[in-house]
């Protein structure tokens, strides 16, 4: 026997066998770990791997795939995975899993480490929460609650009344006007006084000088008289103008009273804000989760194709036509069973996944996922991802009955706070993702109970009234409509809850506002009356003083005016002049007697002369 030839070859064969026997499983385990880590981007812990060659079967035990987005938790964990490969396809270098089974599946379990890889392969292009969710949650405002108190007060605030504003404006206007007239009138007074002084001084002058002075003073007096008349005319025009302004004030009062009625009719909280405030956060978050699952299922294919792509060889792979072409990777049927943490409890579930492949176009079948939980209120989920067309489509239909109640809270402690509880929630979702566009809706039907409303600023009577209205809404039905791009979708929430609450609150406001309206109408009338009285008193008093001052001025300068008129007409004789002057008190009494004697002497002389002529 040629042992020296045989033994080495037997050793080699033994080595090859031992590689398959003892090395294949570890190598496959290593490959599985690396591939899975490349897909998920986080650590993959795989326990034992056992294989069988005839037929080709794989058994994986204790698999835990860490989550990239949640360090310290597992994306999925299962106790055992068993699948059988189709032999014929394996010979063609395609991996076709006829049937696979995962048991003991759990999601979101806790890890001992953070589960993150030291070197990340491809960074997640969008690891942050979607902005639409952030925007929606930021825009959810509870101002409608505080507005319950502010609305009534604000609408009925006297400072907003036109009556008040008009009265204020009129007061300022008339103050200024009277002030101006008074100032002008006062400015004439020194001139009149000076005229009087000059007249007094003229009395001591000689006759001819007196007359000259009087003529001059008459001219000045005429001018002053014109100025005074102008002022007088303006004063006379004050009264009708004041009457007009009082009419304006009345109009403002009527306007305000009408507006109060209008505003009371419009007092109604915004129904959409109520809906968004109460059920918005739950619904938006639920939608966000569904969208995340949809995006994951539509992206699985890219990652799967990336993993099944052969990258080792250099050069170019030339593809030839296969008689029975199948995708490089295909899982015809996979059964999953395990537990889901849902509704704050672990629920057993069963799921079936079919048509998972790296090339759906070649397979010409969509991927379908059905999941249902056990219990009397199960979750039913169906996802159909069809990538056989140019634009992949993902349909999601889900129904879920949540028995655990959800607490609602709206408002801030400093203002108004509304708390309630949603019980017996029924969710249903129907969504379609086409490429990057999404369309669909999520609906919620629920009971509403334990409604409580408290406020530090609203009166207890009104609080009770509002609470009664809120408690009358025993059910909640809300729908979220989502359209547009999946990254920046248009999300609209609709519900009859908001409308019911708003409609129910309106009579409460109206009732409160009616009381306030009566008060306000009286207040408006009183305000108008007060404004008028204040104006009247102020104007009247000053008006009378103005008129009196003016009258005195007029009287003072009338004498000089009369003198001027006589001198201008040429009708003034010495006697007439003397009479006018003495009658006006312009001359002193001595001067008057002196002139009187001279006039008499002149007259006697004239009479004698005339007699002599005619003897």
């Amino acid at each position, binding site marked *: 026997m040629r042992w*020296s030839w045989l*033994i*080495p*070859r037997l*050793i*080699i064969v033994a080595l090859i066998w031992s590689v398959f026997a003892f090395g294949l499983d570890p190598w496959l385990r290593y490959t599985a770990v690396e591939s899975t880590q490349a897909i998920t981007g986080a650590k993959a812990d795989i326990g034992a791997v056992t294989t069988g060659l005839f037929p080709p079967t794989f058994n994986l035990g204790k698999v835990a795939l860490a989550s990239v987005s949640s360090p310290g938790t597992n994306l999925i964990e299962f106790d055992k995975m068993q699948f059988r490969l189709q032999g*014929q396809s394996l*010979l*063609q*270098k395609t991996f076709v899993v006829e049937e696979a089974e995962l048991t003991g599946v759990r999601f979101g379990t806790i890890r001992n480490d953070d589960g993150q890889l030291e070197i990340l392969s491809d960074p997640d292009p969008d690891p942050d929460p979607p902005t639409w969710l952030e925007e929606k949650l930021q825009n959810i405002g509870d101002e409608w609650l505080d507005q319950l108190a502010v609305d009534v007060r604000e609408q009925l605030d006297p400072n907003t009344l036109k009556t008040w504003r008009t009265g204020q404006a009129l007061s300022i206007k008339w103050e200024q006007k009277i002030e101006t007239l008074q100032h002008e009138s006062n400015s004439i007074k020194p001139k009149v006084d000076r005229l009087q002084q000059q007249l007094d001084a003229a009395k001591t002058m000689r006759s001819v000088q007196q007359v000259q002075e009087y003529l001059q003073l008459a001219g000045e007096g005429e001018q002053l008289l014109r100025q005074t008349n102008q002022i007088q005319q303006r004063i006379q025009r004050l009264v009708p103008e004041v009457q007009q302004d009082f009419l304006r004030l009345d109009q403002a009062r009527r306007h305000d009273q009408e507006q109060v009625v209008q505003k009371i009719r419009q007092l109604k909280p915004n129904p959409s804000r109520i809906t968004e405030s109460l059920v918005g956060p739950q619904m938006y978050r639920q939608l966000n989760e569904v969208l995340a699952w949809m995006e994951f299922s539509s992206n699985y294919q890219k990652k799967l194709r990336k993993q099944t792509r052969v990258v*080792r*060889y*250099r*050069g*170019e*792979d*030339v*593809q*030839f*036509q*296969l*008689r029975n072409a199948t995708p490089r990777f295909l899982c015809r049927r996979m059964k999953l069973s395990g537990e889901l943490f849902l509704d704050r409890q672990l629920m057993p579930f069963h799921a079936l996944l079919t048509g998972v492949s790296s090339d759906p176009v070649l397979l010409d079948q969509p991927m379908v996922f059905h999941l249902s939980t056990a219990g009397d209120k199960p979750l039913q989920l169906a996802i159909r991802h069809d990538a056989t067309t140019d634009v992949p489509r993902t349909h999601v239909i889900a129904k879920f009955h949540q028995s655990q109640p959800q607490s609602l809270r709206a408002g801030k402690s400093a203002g108004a706070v509304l708390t309630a509880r949603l019980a017996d929630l029924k969710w249903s979702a129907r969504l379609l993702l086409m490429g990057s566009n999404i369309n669909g809706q999520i609906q919620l039907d629920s009971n509403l109970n334990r409604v409580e409303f408290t406020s530090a600023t609203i009166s207890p009577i009104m609080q009770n009234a509002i609470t009664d209205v809120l408690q009358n809404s025993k059910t909640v039905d809300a729908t979220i409509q989502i359209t547009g791009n999946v990254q920046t979708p248009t999300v609209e929430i609709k519900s009859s809850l908001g409308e019911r609450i708003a409609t129910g609150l309106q009579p409460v406001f109206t009732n409160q506002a009616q009381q306030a309206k009566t008060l306000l109408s009286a207040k408006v009338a009183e305000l108008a009356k007060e404004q008028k009285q204040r104006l009247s008193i102020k104007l009247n008093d000053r008006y009378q003083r103005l008129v009196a001052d003016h009258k005195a001025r007029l009287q003072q300068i009338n004498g000089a005016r009369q003198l001027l008129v006589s001198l201008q007409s040429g009708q003034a004789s010495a006697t007439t002049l003397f009479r006018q002057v003495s009658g006006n008190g312009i001359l002193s009494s001595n001067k008057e007697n002196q002139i009187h004697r001279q006039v008499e002497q002149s007259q006697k002389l004239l009479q004698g002369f005339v007699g002599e002529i005619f003897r």
Partner: protein
Amino acid sequence: MFLFLKPLRLCMKALAAQSAPGQLSMGLALGILVGLVPKGNLLAIALGMVLAASRVNMGVAAAAIVCCSLASPLLDPISHFIGSWLLKYPRLTEFWTWLYNQPIAPWTAFNNSVVLGSLIAGLVLMYPVHQLSRPLFEKYSASAGRWVKRFWLTRALMGAEWATRVGSIE
């Protein structure tokens, strides 16, 4: 101790055996062939098995494999050209399609241009390498063998000492 040393000695002997010039040159040629073909496919494994099963000098073959594996990436452009031309040649398309549909054939990665090109290049080089290297081995193998045997390790592995002792006991 004998259980460990004996197989090792036999392996070393196998490496050092088949030391006829023809076997040495054939080992070199086969080693170049295996070394040129990219690893990680069934073709490389098959060629390795063929090499292991043949009566050629394993030492020379192993050395050739190592050297050519390191140098093969430098020859990729030539291999790619040859392989791509062959794979896309119209008259061979039917043959390649038939071959591709055969079981296990896809595992050989013959449809890769570098793999096929390297295989073809290695096969083509086999005869010239064998013919050209044989006279060199004839001339230098004896002196090389004497040089190797100077080392204690070689002698120990070859079991000369123990064989002499066992022989002397018998």
